[in-house]
């Protein structure tokens, strides 16, 4: 399944409606529905926040193949952005030293098995792959 969404947080309702259809078609259990929604929300909102440039809709593709879920987000005509610049999350720090920055990407990395960013010809593509046999949230 694939669909494009306006680069605005207010698109999240439509994105969840889109992922709900995918989840229903594939008979995913509730924990996997949560994982899919969280991964897509965090990656989508990061693109909206950090990808500067074009202003085009962001395309979301979801597929299942050979026991793996593949989620791709494609953002055209944007400036380069290095996800390594996202602050490191330190779980063992006291609350006074905890920061919200970087938490979304930290959760995505904890949920999926592979996360790759590609940047070419002003297009950013992020791909998250999850083994469907592994424990979900």
């Amino acid at each position, binding site marked *: 399944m694939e669909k494009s969404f306006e680069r605005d947080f207010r698109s999240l309702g439509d994105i*969840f409606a889109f992922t709900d259809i995918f989840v229903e078609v594939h008979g995913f259990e509730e924990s996997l529905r949560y994982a899919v929604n969280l991964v897509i*929300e965090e990656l989508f909102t990061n693109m909206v926040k950090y990808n500067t440039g074009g202003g085009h809709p962001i395309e979301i593709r979801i597929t299942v193949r050979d026991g793996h879920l593949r989620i791709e987000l494609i953002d055209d005509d944007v400036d380069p952005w290095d996800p390594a610049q996202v602050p490191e999350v330190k779980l063992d720090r006291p609350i006074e030293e*905890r920061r919200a*920055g970087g*938490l979304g990407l930290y959760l995505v990395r904890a949920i999926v098995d592979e996360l790759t960013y590609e940047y070419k010809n002003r297009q950013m593509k992020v791909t998250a792959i999850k083994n469907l046999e592994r424990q979900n949230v």
Partner: protein
Amino acid sequence: MFEARLAGDRLQLIGRLDASQVEVAREAMNRLNASGVIDFGELEYISSAGLGMLLGIQKRLMESGGTLKLINMNRHIREIFRMAGFDRIFVIE
């Protein structure tokens, strides 16, 4: 769909708390003065945007000697709190 209902020092969260709804939740939580109970019983989903907002509220309340108590979380949300290390900085019942 998301809704925050405040009754006294108890705030009930309902629906999906995603990045587009964080300001609705923040506005309700800013009305908590010293301490408060957040009821997650009818909350289906929370993402990092909601976690970050809760972290900010907890810090503000702790500065005035208060704290948040979080109750009735479903197991998925509880797992997200555990993954984020938030089970160490909130009282969760």
